[in-house]
């Protein structure tokens, strides 16, 4: 056995435990679920397992529920630009040489490593329609009456007046409701999180002489941001956008499970939660697998679009 072969085998031996784990716990379930998506598999003995072709997919695309939950999933991603912008803003502020930046970085990052369930319980209290600090603030500071303040997690209203039971617009639904509450909470969690750290690292890597050159050219604060900071952070922004899309399309499960149980009236049920309820509460494993693969396809397609068009604006 040559030295090269021995080296290769040694490397493979070190990689093997992780690879075996990946195959067993990730690759195999994914491949298995792809096969299951074309069957009628339930956990009910009386339903014989059968290949049903595209039936699950046809049922899904003709189901009002699927489209409503798809819209919910997209709706909850509306906070993404604000979260990214907020992270960038915080990173710019915290990259300044001022006292206490380490303390502030830690404080802003706290929500990221706090248990999700604890955060959701906290925000449920904040959103209490009568005694929660948010509505009390709205009443005390802005003079709103109790009827004018949003009901938050109990309300089906939303800023786009989306109807509840069918795809469409219902003007009576205009307002702030459960979906908006979850968006606001999501922005608060995300602003000081991993994206802020990525931006901090990106900003630290911007050559100082670019700023000096821009100052010489007469650029002010906004000019420096627009012509130096923002272009130099393009790769970081691109990465954050791609990952945020992926995370956003998969998200919403924890919030639905802990805060709202998918309600009120299904308005906070996302595709991820839908997959869970279909698989583990209604035992339609085949159908749930089909939904999961459609979600994967959507995520993959959007990621490809991001790569194709977004990368144009990225200069390395």
């Amino acid at each position, binding site marked *: 056995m040559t030295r090269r072969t021995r080296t290769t085998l040694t490397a493979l*031996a070190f990689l093997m435990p992780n690879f075996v784990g990946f195959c067993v716990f990730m690759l195999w379930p994914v491949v298995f679920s792809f096969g299951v998506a074309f069957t009628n598999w339930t956990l009910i003995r*009386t339903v014989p397992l059968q290949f049903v072709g595209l039936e699950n997919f046809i049922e899904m695309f003709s189901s009002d529920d699927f489209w409503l939950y798809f819209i919910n999933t997209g709706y909850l991603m509306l906070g993404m630009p604000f979260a990214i912008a907020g992270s960038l803003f915080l990173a710019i502020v915290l990259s300044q040489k001022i006292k206490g930046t380490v303390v502030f970085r830690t404080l802003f990052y706290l929500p990221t490593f706090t248990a999700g369930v604890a955060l959701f319980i906290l925000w449920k209290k904040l959103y*209490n*329609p009568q005694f929660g600090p948010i509505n009390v603030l709205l009443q005390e500071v802005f003079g709103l009456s109790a009827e004018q303040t949003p009901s938050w997690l109990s*309300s089906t209203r939303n800023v786009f007046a989306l109807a509840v039971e069918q795809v469409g617009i219902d003007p009576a639904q205009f307002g702030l409701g459960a979906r908006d509450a979850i968006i606001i909470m999501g922005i608060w969690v995300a602003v000081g999180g991993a994206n802020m750290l990525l931006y901090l690292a990106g900003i630290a890597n911007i050559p100082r002489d670019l700023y000096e050159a821009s100052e010489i050219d007469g650029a002010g604060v906004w000019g420096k941001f627009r012509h130096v900071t923002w272009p130099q952070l393009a790769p970081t922004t691109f990465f954050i956008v791609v990952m945020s899309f992926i995370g956003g399309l998969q998200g919403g499960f924890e919030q639905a499970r802990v805060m709202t149980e998918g309600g009120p009236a299904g308005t906070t049920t996302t595709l991820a939660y839908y997959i869970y309820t279909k698989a583990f*509460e209604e*035992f339609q494993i085949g159908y749930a697998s089909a939904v999961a693969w459609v979600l994967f396809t959507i995520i993959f397609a959007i990621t490809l679009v991001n790569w194709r068009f977004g990368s144009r604006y990225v200069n390395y």
Partner: protein
Amino acid sequence: MKHIFIWGFITLSILSVGAWWAQPEPVDQRAEQLAFFLEYADHDQSGTVSPTDLHEFLEALDRNNDGVISRNDIDETTPWDEAELIERIIDEFDEQGDGQVRPQDFDRAFEFLDRDGDGLLTEADFPGEMPTEIIWVSDDNPVRREQIRLFNRLHPDTQLTLDPQNQGMEKVIVQSVGGVGPDLFDAYDAYQLSAYVRAGIAKDLTDIFEERGISIDALWPGLLPVITHEGRIYGHPTNVAANAVWYNKRIFDEAGIPYPTDDWTWDEAIEISQQLTRRNERGVIVRFGIIGNWDWKLALFQHHADFFNEEGTRCILDRPEAARALQFMQDLVHKYEVMPSAEEESALASAGGWGAGALSLFGAERGAMAIGGRWWLCSLRDESYDHLELGAVRIPGLPMPDGTISHRVNAYGRGTLINNASENVEEAVDFLEYMHGPEYNKLINRQADALAPVREYSYTEEYLHNPDFPEEDYNEVWRSVLEDAAAEIPSPFINGQTVQRILNVQMDLLRANLKSGEAAGRDAARRINEEIVRTLERDPELREKYFEALERGAEPAWDDEADAPR
């Protein structure tokens, strides 16, 4: 290269042994209790403990000389190790679940532990074999542990262990399908039972019950759908309940309103509720006249509206009686303003966990009255609720179109089932047999964990008047509402979780005043009937049964043949 494999093998071996060693062993309660007595009650270090020794041990700890060991024997002068000892004794030997250990509790423990029957506890009484452990997935309510302890005492060769962490139908089914399910688990309604049976997880106990002489005729009929499926028996009820109205006597006294009586109607209840509703200076309601988990099912039952037709082939929530029932529930919130809306309820609520929601609100006096069950006493007996002066009365009567007054309510409760794959079926059946017996049923009634599943035990003086709680003069109410209670009959042609999902959406809209009762019922019925059709398209066995039912004259779930199952 050789070294890598050797070290890899050693590492894996160490990890495997470590994982095996770290597995918790079943705890032998008998051995633990015996060791406890030999350590603490053997005053003369003779290696033996007699009944006299036990009594002397109890007297030594009974600091307040009331004849029992309780937390009243602990005060600021009690040494911490003695306080810990008292806590442990209460935890191990409190048979009645009232925080007191009596001499007779020690006597029973002595009999239980004296294996060789020589009248002394010695090393020779240590059990030779570990008891057979059976796992029960159930909720960890305040009185559950006492129910289990009693069973373990009566069956020394079996140890029943509670597993509250794996509750949830999805967990039980997935774990059971994966071969790691519990021996016993609970079904909370007929849908769950149907799901367990159709998944092949619930064991058919019909023949076993017959051999053991366990008759379901002795049970409250309202809960039979939770343990029987298509004529076969799959479990035994754990307890049974039907809702009545709790009221806070102090609030009634303050307002100068007479207490409600069993012949009251909803008109009177609404009037009283409106009088007892209180608002703060901002006009926000801080105390509702009546609260209670917005029980729309109760309204359906009282209006004699059913979810499905008799054969379960069609959802009939689009019928006038269902529309009236649902509209009534909406009116209680938005027209009469005596019950909280969803946001008002979430605004008032502050607690979580077992028995939370309306119970917590009532305990916090956010409601003058509350619709709830006798099982609330498991929490309301706690000293933190001592400020409440409780009364109970039947659900207000509903005048019907035919001139009668309806008190019809729905019965609910849990049934305990045995896993088809259990390796300890005999021991598990022992547990269900224990649930049918006097010790368990009397304990349930004494603990007020709803009512005992076997009817006869709720027709005793012991049930009506618990000497430990003489102020509970309303036990007759809980029995009488159960006599009027009907069972919720599911449809075998649709998954219960699907029904629940559809109903949750409609009820949310109804409660939020976004839909009328008629519209909510109609839309719920339409969607549920569509799901029935889809279920029939997927399940050939169900489809066959469905069409057999249609041949017998049942109404189909579709009005147009074009909508019939393909």
